[in-house]
């Protein structure tokens, strides 16, 4: 930086720059750092959510949620299952759609815009709409066509409810991820693809061996986005199934589609166990952090530099 431009003017510069940092740093400390530290601390206490004071009880909350909370175990497993299925479904569908809307098909600009629409709407609204579709429209169609598999609501059956959630989330998210793939495909030099075709490569070969390796960066971004979003899914879960239906796991009755984010909220406010809810939130944070780190470093190592 410039050395001696007069002390007062330099000080004034520093003061301005300091003031420029104040709002964000203040908000960062007040909204993220302090609640985060409190959050970690409360997970080791018997905090009741009202007072700021609490008694330290060590790992008791963690022990409780892992050994004596069948709903948490179910929520953990079902969230994992949903995340895996959803990441695959969203990415496969979006990738295929991105090939479709970058082909020579007529009206592709309309398709792009149309597929993107669900992504603009909030999860509460989307979940409510799909609840109507699953509870009324699809069974209605099933009955009038005499198709048995459709005539029962997918969201009241434990075997199909995850499929329903994957369907809605894919519908909501595919258009967005598709546009990330489209941007990536458009960034690939045409001459590379043309050279491959001159060499007689078939379309699947071009996609598999040229297009996909060059899109590695887009895959990293999309996998990361879908992975974290699936794992954190809350709004649609709440509005579409609210955790239901109830089902039997072992000898315990649990909510079959209550994902972790919903379970954390319910533990605190429905079952009034604030400290245990906080302990679950800390576990949730650790899992999310570890998974993101593994996923990013794995994908980075596979990316092709162009």
């Amino acid at each position: 930086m410039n050395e001696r431009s007069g002390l007062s003017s330099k000080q004034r510069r520093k003061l301005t720059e300091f003031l420029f940092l104040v709002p964000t740093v203040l908000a960062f400390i007040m909204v993220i750092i302090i609640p985060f530290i409190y959050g970690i601390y409360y997970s080791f206490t018997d905090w009741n959510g009202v007072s700021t004071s609490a008694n330290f009880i060590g790992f008791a909350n963690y022990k409780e949620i892992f050994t004596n909370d069948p709903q948490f175990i179910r929520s953990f497993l079902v969230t994992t299952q949903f995340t895996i299925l959803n990441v695959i479904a969203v990415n496969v569908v979006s990738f295929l759609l991105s090939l479709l809307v970058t082909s020579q098909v007529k009206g592709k600009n309309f398709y792009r815009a149309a597929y993107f629409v669900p992504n603009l709407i909030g999860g509460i609204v989307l979940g409510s709409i799909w609840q109507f579709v699953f509870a009324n429209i699809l069974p209605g169609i099933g009955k009038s066509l005499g198709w048995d598999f459709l005539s029962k609501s997918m969201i009241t059956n434990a075997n199909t409810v995850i499929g329903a959630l994957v369907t809605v989330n894919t519908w909501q998210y595919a258009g967005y991820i598709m546009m990330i793939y489209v941007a990536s495909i458009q960034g690939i030099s045409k001459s590379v693809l043309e050279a491959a075709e001159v060499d007689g490569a078939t379309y699947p070969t071009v996609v598999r061996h040229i297009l996909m390796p060059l899109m590695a960066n887009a895959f990293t971004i999309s996998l990361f986005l879908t992975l974290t979003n699936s794992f954190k899914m809350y709004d649609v879960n709440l509005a579409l199934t609210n955790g239901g239906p109830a089902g039997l796991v072992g000898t315990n009755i649990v909510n079959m589609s209550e994902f972790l984010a919903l379970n954390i909220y319910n533990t605190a406010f429905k079952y009034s166990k604030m400290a245990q809810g906080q302990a679950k939130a800390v576990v949730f944070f650790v899992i999310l952090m570890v998974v993101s780190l593994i996923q990013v470093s794995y994908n980075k190592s596979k990316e092709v530099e162009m």
Partner: protein
Amino acid sequence: MQTDAVKGKNAIHPGRKVALEIIGIIVSIFFLMPFAIVVLNSMRTNAEIINSAVGLPQSPGVFFENVASVWNNPTFNFVQAIRDSVIITVLSLAIISICSAMTAWVLVRNKTKWSNFLFMMFVAAMVIPFQVVMFPLITWFRDLGNFLHIPMLRSYPGIIFAYLGFGESMTIFIFHGFIKSVPLELEEAADIDGCTRAGTFFRIVLPLLQPVFVTVLVLNGLWIWNDYLLPLLLLGSNSEVRTIPLAVQGFIGSFVKQWNLIMVSTLLAMLPVIILYLFAQKYIIQGMVDGAIK
């Protein structure tokens, strides 16, 4: 537009082109069908819907009655919800954008140990999920509000301040990446001309950031507008201040199985964003994609 990346010198087989078109249309129907269902069922009476869920409206004029009963419903209070959503979204966006741009600029232009550390803190915070801070945030904001004599819960200032905290990390990250590529010469020239540091930022740097503003506004705007959990926790479900997602959820909770009215409420809730999308489609898609890639 340069869109046909996967295209050989020879046009593809006409049969295949027709097949692609059919796929495109079928997928479009799947994607747009839920919206059609909302509109169609907004035009039916609840008796019609219960009698047969699948069917066309018998007297579409019912639509206006349905809209009127949702619009005038005190539980839903759509006008108030729109107003509060607009106030919270617009003010949050303005504050997040300006404050983050100021911070990113200072961090880029001062390469010190501290600025690096601060930047790394903002980046690291992006992996912190809302769930891990949300419970302590409520009690902390309550106590902070009592201490400062500014209501932090059930009020505009509290939620806007919270949105600044949750939104700034990513926004600073995006601005930071862009400002690095802005040449220093312009700022130095302004400096020599005797421009103050603040003047340099607001007159020279800020206008140059216009392209990233689209990204920042779209990403944060859609997030805040559609967010449900933060308003639920900081405003509560029966607060004076309530956003559209809170209103929809509250309405649905109190009108169980009144499907025609529920469909109207979702239609009203979607309308503002859909209208905006019709006019600014290009910018919205661009902003979302750029935000993910950067």
